[in-house]
Structure formats: C-alpha cells, structure tokens
C-alpha cells in the first residue's frame, strides 16, 4: 500500500517533472493511468509487447509503438516466397489493427537515440518521446563488416542476405528465377548464434524443391561456418538424402571471410573459394544498432544481457529488451515464437510493476518452430521453458519438447495455422 501511494504521488508530480522543476520526480515511474510504455520495433516481439501491455493493463497504460516500416513482414514463411509457393502479400500484415483494436499509438519513424536517465527517446525525424518504461525489440543487425566486400555488394543488390524479410526477399527470388538451369545457388551461414537457427536449412530445402521442379540441373550449396547443421539436423539430412540427392550439397566448417562481387566468388577462412551464380550470404549478427549504441549489448559486444524474470536490461533500468537481440538463456532459440513469449513476460512484468504488484516469480515460455522442406511439407521443434529462480535463468522443463518424426503435409498445414494465429496474437 505504501508503495502504491508513493507511485500515485510520483504520478501526480510527473507534470512538475516535465517542467524540469524536480529532478527526482522526473525519475519516478507513473501509475497505470498516467504511465507511457514506449515500444521500439514492431516485429514479432515489439508488436506483441505493444498489444499485451494494453491488454494486460485493461487498456489503462498508454502504449506508443515506433516502427519504421508501413506494414509487418514476417520472416517465418518468407523462405516460401523464395521457393515461389507464396507471395509477399501472403506474409505481410497491416499495423493499423493495433491502433484500431487496441489503442496503440503507432509512430512510423526510427529511434535515433535513447537517454536512459531522462527516459526520453529521440526520433530520427527530430521529435522526442518520453517514457516510463521502454520495450526495446530491435531485432538483429547484419555485421556486414565481418565479410570483406559484402557491404558494398549488398548495397549494389548483387549479394543479398534476405534474412530480414522485405525487399531483399523478392530480389533474391528474382535472382533465383533469372538463374539458368544448371546454375548454383550458394547459401553461406554464420557461426551460431544467429536469428532463426533452422532458417538457412529450410531456405536451402525450399530452393532445392523449386530447382527440382523448375530447373533440375541446378544445385543448392550450403556453406556452413558451424561444425554441423545447428537445428533439426537429422530431419533435414534425411530429407536432403531422400528428396534432393544431387540437387543439394552440405559443407560444414566453411566460414566466409570475403566476397568478390565481380566474379560472384566467396572466400573462406580455410577452404577453397567457391563461385556460384546466386550468392546468398548471411553475415554474423548482433543486437540491432539502437541497442548497441545505447550500451546494452554487453555480451561479446553483440547481445543484450537481461534479467530473465522481467527482461529488463542488466545495464539500464526501465528498458526491457526482448527478441533476437538478447543474450539467450540455455536452449532458447532466436525465433519469432520466442520473441512473442519474451514480449508477454515483459508486458506482464511492466503491468505488475506499474500497479505496485510483485512480478510473476515463475514465468513460462514456449517455442514451436516449423520449417518447410518444400512447398507443403514441414517439420517442427517444440520446447517449454520455465524460469528457475535459483539460477536466475530460463531452462527447458525436463521431459518436455521434441521434434517431428518426419516431414509431412499435416505439419505444413499446422505451420500455416501457426502463422495466422501468431500474426493475429501480435497484431490484431
């Protein structure tokens, strides 16, 4: 009760704070009726956080979402666009449902900087937004400088990543369509951790399916910096042997260090150069730039350390970092499903805190990740994660989780249902 009174008092004096009369009042967090939660980034994590802060606060807490893109484009399923089975329209959803149905204020802009002490975000357009709590869901930044020549080749549109679904997804599809039958598409995978562990293998499989049907003399070459397939390995290898023999080749321990865009050649730390007709190079990744420049990416200067109970940054109070940008707990994949889960734990913690309640001491997370092996058949990996207070981290619940037995069309249909449900859960 004492805490609640204090919070109310803080809310009442927030007006004074904004006038700059009382430094300490500026740092007091508001009540649900007066507080503003600022969400930066509208991907799987940010969109979900924006909606769930509204939902879980009974629509009391004001939520502002800053997102540069006009519409939500899903990374999951985007490999099917590369295979030709789906269009960009199929994987694009509007943001306006978040404002129409849930009263989220959407600002289409970029956050240029954050002042964690004053609790103010400066927009690229020059405006400022104050916040009581900030949810930072910046996704990943491609570390182009780790592969010599890649930044320039990417800017010219010669060598694409298409790992952030959007214009590059369509551009890579066009490169595949333009490739003559008998050509090679090489996919370079960085060392883990990177966004979506099984994604590159799904991509290779779906492109192989397209080649098998449309240009059967062609080949997909996977050049993996890792020792072995990082996710769903046995399932993918079985499919490659059974369905794509001669069409798909997997080479582990190939760490790309440079590209030559003029000759479409990829260079490696140890192995011989590889020339391909279409080069799809995924560089190493780290937390989105805004997290790095705010000083939150303190794990190997790449990922953001958080308190897993609330997803609050270990380095800045009142900033909750979610999604692919965080330093993961054991066995926690960088997936859209998981980002959605982070968002809900963070949203609930913020709502509890603004109400003066103890945060949930035992939050739970799930992950279900489908990968297509062609246009119709999919496989999955699933897990359940519980917060272990003694170790201050999430761990998988013993005995839970698992993989598909084999790819099939039922799981393909479930994967499509998953996408529709999670898009609706995040946006509508």
């Amino acid at each position, binding site marked *: 009760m004492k805490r609640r009174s204090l919070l109310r008092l803080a809310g009442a004096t927030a007006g004074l704070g904004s006038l700059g009369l009382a430094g300490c009042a500026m740092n007091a967090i508001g009540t649900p009726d007066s507080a503003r939660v600022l969400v930066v980034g509208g991907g799987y994590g940010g969109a979900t956080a924006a909606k769930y802060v509204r939902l879980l606060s009974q629509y009391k807490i004001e939520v502002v979402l800053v997102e540069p893109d006009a519409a939500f484009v899903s990374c999951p399923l985007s490999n099917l666009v590369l295979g030709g089975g789906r269009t960009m329209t199929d994987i694009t959803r509007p943001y306006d449902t978040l404002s129409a149905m849930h009263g989220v204020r959407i600002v289409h802009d970029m956050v240029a900087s954050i002042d964690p002490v004053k609790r103010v975000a400066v927009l690229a357009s020059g405006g400022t937004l104050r916040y009581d709590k900030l949810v930072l869901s910046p996704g990943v930044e491609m570390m182009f400088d780790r592969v010599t020549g890649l930044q320039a080749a990417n800017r010219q549109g010669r060598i694409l990543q298409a790992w952030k679904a959007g214009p590059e997804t369509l551009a890579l599809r066009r490169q595949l369509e333009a490739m003559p039958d008998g050509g090679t598409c090489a996919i370079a995978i960085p060392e883990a951790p990177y966004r979506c562990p099984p994604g590159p293998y799904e991509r290779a499989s779906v492109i192989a399916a397209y080649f098998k049907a449309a240009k059967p003399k062609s080949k997909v070459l996977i050049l993996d910096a890792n020792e072995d397939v990082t996710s769903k390995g046995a399932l993918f290898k079985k499919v490659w042997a059974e369905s794509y023999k001669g069409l798909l080749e997997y080479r582990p321990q190939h760490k790309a260090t440079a590209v030559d865009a003029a000759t479409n050649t990829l260079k490696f730390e140890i192995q011989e150069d590889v020339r391909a007709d279409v080069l799809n190079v995924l560089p190493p990744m780290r937390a989105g730039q805004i997290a790095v420049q705010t000083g939150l990416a303190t794990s190997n200067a790449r990922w953001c350390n958080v308190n897993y109970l609330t997803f609050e940054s270990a380095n800045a109070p009142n900033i909750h970092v979610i999604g692919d940008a965080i330093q993961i707990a054991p066995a926690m994949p960088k997936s859209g499903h998981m980002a959605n889960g982070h968002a809900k734990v963070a949203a609930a913690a913020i709502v509890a805190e603004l109400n003066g309640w103890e945060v949930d001491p035992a939050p739970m997370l799930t992950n279900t990740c489908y990968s297509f092996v062609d246009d119709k058949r999919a496989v999955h990996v699933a897990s*359940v994660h519980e917060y272990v207070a003694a170790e201050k981290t999430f761990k998988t619940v013993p005995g839970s*989780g*698992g993989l598909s037995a084999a790819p099939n069309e039922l799981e393909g249909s*479930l994967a499509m249902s*998953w996408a529709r*449900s*999670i898009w609706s*859960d995040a946006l509508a």
Partner: protein
Amino acid sequence: MKLVLSALALLIAGPALAQDAGALRARSLAATCAQCHGTDGRVPPGSATVALAGMPAAYLTEQMTAFKTGARPGTVMPQLAKGYSDAQIAQLAAYFAQVQTGGKP
C-alpha cells in the same frame, strides 16, 4: 461437479475482470498458448488449431493430461503438455473456460 467447476470459473473470471496480480499471472500463463491457439484461446477463422476459448475446464484438463501422459497422440501437443505441471494445467483450463467466445474479454 458441474456446479463446482462453474464456481471455479467464476472465481477466476472475477479477478480477470477486476484485475489483480493473480489474474494477471493466470492470463500470462494462458498467453503461452496464444501463439498457436490465438489470444485468449480465440483462433482466427479457418485455423487447423482448435479454439480453447469457452471450452469446459474439465474437458481441457482431460485433453492436456492425455497429451501429457501419451494417451492422446499428436504432433506438437504431447511435447508441450509435458512442460506444464498438473496445477498449471488446471489453471489454464479454468482460465480458458471463462473466456467468452467472440469479442474482446
């Protein structure tokens, strides 16, 4: 038995509307199902995944328990159900049972 379940549903429904720390936790736990089953168990039209909203608590508990023990086969659910304690399953069942179907809660 039916009366007891209705009373339980009311107990959960009350706080869900009045909002307190317990209701927030129950709803947060239920939100771990929403990625596939929709927010508050309301799936979008045409989904291959079942809606959980408004299902009787006893039925939900029975099905989750059957997935957990292996009595009911499935793809993802036998693997996920093993991650929830019996108490959590009861909490989930009570939560979804009190969700009104259609419209916002």
